[in-house]
């Protein structure tokens, strides 16, 4: 897969501001590509997935149960938004992507289009 990570900020983004780059695993097999992304703190309704042409955008907002009067004393996560953009290659079937968000881990399955899948060619005996 020609998964190319682009800059996390671009001027055309409808919602500007700082974002975090979520860590991902990308695994390819004969039938497609599986992408896992760590998005801790993102509930399902705050996750935005978009495929436009050959660009996959993953965006999520962190939502924590924080008491109003809390004063932060230590923060390793200080930006409440994840964003990451990938460029998909032609043989991927973007119409049949499945996505699942469990315990802050997004699993995206992008199958290859049937034409691109490996096929065994029968050799007929003479």
């Amino acid at each position: 897969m020609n998964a190319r990570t682009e800059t996390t900020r671009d001027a055309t983004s409808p919602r500007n501001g700082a974002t975090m780059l979520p860590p991902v695993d990308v695994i390819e097999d004969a039938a497609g590509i599986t992408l896992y992304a760590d998005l801790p703190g993102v509930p399902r309704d705050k996750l935005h997935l978009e495929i436009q042409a050959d660009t996959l955008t993953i965006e999520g907002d962190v939502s924590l149960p924080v008491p109003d009067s809390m004063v932060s004393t230590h923060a390793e996560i200080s930006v409440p938004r994840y964003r990451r953009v990938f460029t998909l290659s032609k043989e991927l079937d973007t119409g049949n992507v499945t996505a699942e968000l469990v315990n802050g881990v997004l699993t995206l399955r992008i199958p290859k289009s049937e034409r691109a899948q490996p096929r065994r060619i029968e050799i007929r005996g003479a």
Partner: protein
Amino acid sequence: MYWSSFPRDAFAEFDRLQRELSRAVERSPSIRGFGRSSFPALNVGDTQQAVEIYAFAPGLDPASIDVQLDRGILTISGDRRADTTQTDKSTVHVNERFSGAFRRVVSLPDDADPDAVSAEYRDGVLHIAVKRRAETQPRRINVQ
């Protein structure tokens, strides 16, 4: 609001960039662990009634997370298995997510009450609240 209290200045941005760069470069962490880019990331905050700890630990079975409180030291530990079922026919293109054993330690203030701890795991974030002892909480004294 909680998030807006963090500065969004150039230094903060640079710090974030540096952390991400070091995570990409440091493929062999020190013998004592992961240093700065440790898992899970922690946020800690104070209220008058409690200490609130948020551990960003996605993809865990809540029952497998071990939270211990011993003499004011809170320890969060566990094991995160790679859920990437790899076969001979598959190729790993990107592998950035943490896997393996982890352990993080937080030192609690003196007035933390070890008998009043609650822990909840939601959306991959472990939220631990440790109440402060009642006798140390601010109290209004009536003037006669």
